[in-house]
């Protein structure tokens, strides 16, 4: 896509993703699950449900409710993270829930809860996008009725250049990070955030680049699901 020859300090081209691998169905006790390795990110998403709603007053008669928790293990970060949920984790839990819900056919599961648990075992830049990709595969693995997969990728700016898929080092030293999630077949933006500074031109360029990144992720998600169901892969475990 990108025509320029700019090479990033991590050796990637401006529009090059980190190495990504996704595997579906790795938690035996979950109804659906996936593990994604995305650069140094190592993230498990597990889905439970549709199941009974607790507490009762959260139940909705016309549709499911989605619960979502994004949680980092203390050993996932450079400096040990306190085990209790930070405000950052609470906010990311919310934006991920809102990013995945548009894909779920909520009215197929009235009076139930669908729980999505995301565990960051090892973190790198872009963990929320990686988590959404894993959660999407886990939802499909759980057999939840969906309109589309949700696929996520960030673009950003570092060293004056618009780049795809910002890693940890680029996030810290760079000028901007813009995570995006879309429903690729429906053309719908379901997560969008921006931290940093972009001109209007750069903003649009980054949005296009992130969208193209999402399309690549979509293929990897589909492969992960096909690998599970057609290779009849019975292996479980991280």
């Amino acid at each position, binding site marked *: 896509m990108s025509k320029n020859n700019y090479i990033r300090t991590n050796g990637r081209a401006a529009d090059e993703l980190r190495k990504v691998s996704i595997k579906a169905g790795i938690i035996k006790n979950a109804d659906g699950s996936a593990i994604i390795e995305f650069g140094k990110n190592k993230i498990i998403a597990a889905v439970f449900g549709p199941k009974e709603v607790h507490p009762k007053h959260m139940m909705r008669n016309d549709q499911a409710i989605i619960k979502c928790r994004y949680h980092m293990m203390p050993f996932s970060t450079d400096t040990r993270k306190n085990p209790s949920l930070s*405000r950052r984790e609470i906010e990311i839990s919310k934006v991920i829930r*809102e990013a995945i819900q548009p894909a779920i056919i909520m009215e197929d599961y009235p009076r139930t809860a669908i729980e999505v648990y995301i565990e960051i075992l090892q973190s790198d830049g872009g963990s929320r996008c990686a988590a959404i990709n894993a959660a999407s595969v886990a939802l499909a693995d759980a057999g939840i009725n969906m309109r589309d997969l949700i696929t996520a990728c960030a673009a950003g700016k570092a060293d004056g250049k618009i780049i795809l898929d910002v890693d940890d080092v680029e996030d810290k030293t760079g000028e901007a990070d813009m995570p995006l999630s879309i429903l690729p077949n429906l053309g*719908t*933006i379901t997560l969008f955030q*921006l931290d*940093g500074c972009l*001109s*209007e031109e750069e903003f649009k360029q980054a949005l296009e680049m992130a969208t193209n990144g999402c399309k690549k992720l979509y293929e990897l998600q589909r492969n992960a699901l096909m690998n599970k169901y057609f290779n009849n892969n019975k292996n479980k475990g991280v």
Partner: protein
Amino acid sequence: MPAVKKIRIIDSMRRTDIENSLKQSKRLDGRAILDYREISIETNVLQKTSGSASVKIGDSEVLAGIKVELGRPFPDTPDKGIIICNAELLPICSAFIEPGPPSEDAIELSRVSDRGIRESGMIDLPQLVIREGEDVFAVFIDIAVINEDGNLFDACSYAIAAALHGATMPTFKIENDKVVILEKVKPLPILSLPISTTFVKIGDKILLDPNAEEQTMCEARLTLVTDDKGNFVSAQKGKAGGFSFKEFNEMIEISKKKGEEIRKKIIKNDK
């Protein structure tokens, strides 16, 4: 008092009214879809702060207070002052808010407000250092939501901008290796005034400045923050629905124009 939150529900007749009106690109309060409600900004409303502002957007009302105190820098940024930004949805502001630990909504509001300040480089943090790695000034930005009628993201953004624009900080001297705060104050070093604009989508319409009803029934929300130079410095999409790319591009255009209008209002107000 436990936090059993009542949920705001728009009944189906009201919902139909709103939708029918929007088909003619009109809102029930008479606004066009890209109109803001009346915005009023008043500064220096709190005596025990280094800067403060009261902002009303229609019936939404927030109050921001700045306090600048001695603090210690974070270990990984010994050469920068500290920003702590916190927004509270007070139980006085709505029948749908219960007292208790901050809700997910309050945390999102706080963090989006915080990032709007932090990522835009609004405050010149190196200027807040007293002794590198040892003593810095910490800028506490606390926001009280007094009455809630939608679009708190923008109300907080303007209150922060108005309170910081013209805020002061202490001067100091070092005496016997201790930091002594002096009575004299100087202006807080502000580098830019990022301004947020918030859109919601109802049906196929994009609305600016949603009121509480519109925000409750909308499918998706987008906040775009622009700075003095027309750059985009922060953004947050919310709600469990989505936008098309076409809608996105529209909002990008509008936010720049509206941001500029509102920025002028805040600067004028402060003179």
